[in-house]
Structure formats: C-alpha cells, structure tokens
C-alpha cells in the first residue's frame, strides 16, 4: 500500500515539476497573437490589443499588473487596455524640470493593495481641461515601453482614452 502511494506521489511530483518548469511564455489574453518584440520599437498607432486588463476580474487584473511590473521586458511593445482610477503627480524629467505624470491605479479585491502604471498620451492634451477628474475610472489603450537598462521602469506610451 505504501509503495502504491509512494509511486503515485513521485509521479505526481514529477508532473508538477514538469508543469512548472515549462511555464515560461507570457500569455496574450486577447484572441489575436501579437508579434514578439525583440527591441524597443518606434511609437506606432495602437491597433489590436494584446493585453486587455479591462476584461479581467479584480483579482486577476491585480495579479497580471504585478506580473507586468515584475517582468516588464516580456511585455515591451505590446498593446494594452487598462482600466483603473486616474491619478496624477508631478515628477522631474531628465533635465530636472518639473513634469506632470499620469497614472492608472489598479487595486486588488480588498482595495487595500494598489499598483499604478504610468501612461503618456499620444496626443498633446491640456491639463486639467482635457483630462478626467482625479480618482475617476478611466480606460486607456496604449503600448508598453520597458526601459531595457532598468526593467522596473514601465510606461504605457501613445495612450488614448476610451
């Protein structure tokens, strides 16, 4: 009896190891298959959506955003649609000049944990007249840009409000 259970456990553990070790490819939620980006591409009009965060549940979207922020280089160049709370802050550009930055804040199911993705608009919009109210729910479509020198820097560029 012990041998029977032991053999089944060993088989099960090998199965689990194999399953885990094979999982290395980021998945595109949308039905369309996106071309894998080899390097940073020039800005282009967002056409089809590769990662649609607006269709996921609260738990899934938080986990997927965490995944994106942890593995930014895998998402570089992909088109994303994200929905969350609009937030803004003032930071500095490379020359030390103040610049306004915009964020889409995504909370988890308990609303106690939050993650934000910075986005930049495709068109030049005037602040604050052309922007929604802070903390209002927004949907933005844009393209991921991951700084290859610092993978923690992830921005959505060429953003368009939906």
């Amino acid at each position, binding site marked *: 009896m012990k041998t029977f259970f032991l053999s089944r456990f060993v088989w099960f553990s090998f199965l689990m190891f194999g399953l885990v070790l094979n999982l290395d490819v980021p998945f595109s939620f949308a039905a369309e298959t996106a071309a894998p980006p080899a390097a940073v591409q020039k800005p282009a009009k967002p056409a089809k959506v590769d990662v649609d965060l607006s269709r996921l549940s609260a738990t*899934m979207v938080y986990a997927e955003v965490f995944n994106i922020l942890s593995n930014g280089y895998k998402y570089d160049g992909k088109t994303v649609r994200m929905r969350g709370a609009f937030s803004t802050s003032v930071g500095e550009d490379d020359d030390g000049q103040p610049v306004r930055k915009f964020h889409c804040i995504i909370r988890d*199911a308990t609303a*106690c944990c939050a993650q934000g993705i910075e986005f930049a608009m495709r068109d030049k919009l005037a602040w604050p007249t052309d922007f929604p109210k802070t903390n209002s729910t927004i949907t933005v479509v844009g393209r991921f840009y991951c700084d290859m020198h610092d993978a923690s820097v992830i921005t959505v560029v060429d953003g368009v409000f939906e």
Partner: protein
Amino acid sequence: MEEGVFQTLGQYLAFPFVQNALVAGTLIALCASLLGVPLVLRRFSYIGDGLSHVAFSVMAVAAIFGLSNNMFLVLPATIICAVLLLHGGEKRKIKGDAAIAMLAVGSLAVGYLLLSKFSPSANFSGDVCGTLFGSTSILTLSKTDVILCVALSVVVLLAFVFFYNRIFALTFDETFAQASGVRTGFFNLLLAVLIAVVIVLAMNLVGALLISAFVIFPVLSAMAICKSFLSVTITSACLSVFCAVTGMLISILAGTPVGSTIVAMNIAVFLVFRLIGFFCAEKKL
C-alpha cells in the same frame, strides 16, 4: 451564461501565474491537511497561528533589510520556533496554549511595529494587509517561489508517507510509542520542522491570519464522517485540495480575495459534512 463563465475560466487558466498558483496551491493544501490531522488530534490546532505570526515578523525584518528572497530567513526562524513549541515536552515552564499565544501576539506586534517604523515601500498598509490575508499572494509567486514551494511540498509529502506509522503512534499515545522503541524525540522534531515548512508555504495561499482555518477545517470535516486515522487523513487531503482549487477558481472569476474565498469554501464543506455526519448518526440510532 454558463458558456461565458467556462469560456472566461478557460482563458484565465491559460495565464502562467494562474497555472503556477493552482500547482502551488494544490500541493500546499495537500501538505497542510496531512499535517493538520496530528495537530488537531494532539490539541495543537492553534499552533498554525503562532507560527504564521512569527513568520510575519521575520518577513517584516527581511523586508526592512531589503532581502530579495525572504524564504531563507523566514523558514529557519519559523522552524526554530516550531521546535521550541512542540519539542520542549513536559519540561517547559510555559506550556501549550500560553506559549503559542505569547509567541503569536508578540510576533505580530513586533512585526507590525518594525514595518510601520521602517517601511521599505510606500504602500505599507497594503503590504501588511496582503501578507495577513493572502488576498493575491498566491497569484504573484515568482518562478523561484513556485519551484521552492513544489520541492518543499514533495519533501513534506514523502516524509509523511515514509513515517506514517510512527506519526500515527506519536499522535495517539506518545508514551506507548516510546516504550515500543519509536524515537519520539526525533519524530517530534521532524513533525515540528514539517509543520513549520507547511505554515510558511501556506502563508502564500491564505495569509498569516487565516492559516489555522486552512489547517483545521478539512480535518474536522473529515472527522465528521470518518472513523479511522487513515480515512480521516485521506478524506481531509481530498477536501483540502478541493476547497483550495475551487476557492482559487471562484476568487479569480468573482474578483474576491483568494485566502478568504478558500477559507469560506472550507467552512461550507465543513457544514455540509457535519450535516451528513449528523444524519448518518441519526440513521444508525
């Protein structure tokens, strides 16, 4: 409507982090239920809380020092506490529930104090909340975490299977087991180490505050209808895995916190099994 739900679930299951969560969650549930049986029978049900709170405070220390992988600090510290709690025997001055309570509340307070004073991130309350309640922890495991989780779970499972008879003897009559030649000191130590490992792994699934429910409920559900140690162990394992998998799937579909949903599933199953046990007992009378 049903087709939409299944279609959505199928799409969600294609995400790598969901697959990782299901693999890790299943193994953690299996290990927790197996070790829950001797814990409940030896009246150490609340030790899960004590050890998880110790792990939380060590995680706080690891976060403050900026350790990339806190498992290498949390696991040894939790094992040491488990050994102190379970292996001391009758010689301890502070016994059983008092020792667990002291350790639990003391660790939680110190951990929260350290994090509030030296918080490594801007989202301090979010980090604490996520660790305590396990809202999405299982869905944000890194590859290293998953491999470590699988490896440790396999070790726990193999140890339980190999030493099943000795664990059985130790659970019901330690004195008789010792008189029969079982090395009770060694197996108490082994049990303490295995429990500490499972508690640290289970924190990723249900959080520090809900671990006791995760360990206890499957065992109590099984004990409502099963009478032998083996049947309780097997039933408890099946129920725990069922509740963990179902809870995770419901939480990702409905957008609810993972840890709470799994515990809610465990409670529902417990109530169902208690009813079944009640009606079976009535029928026998």
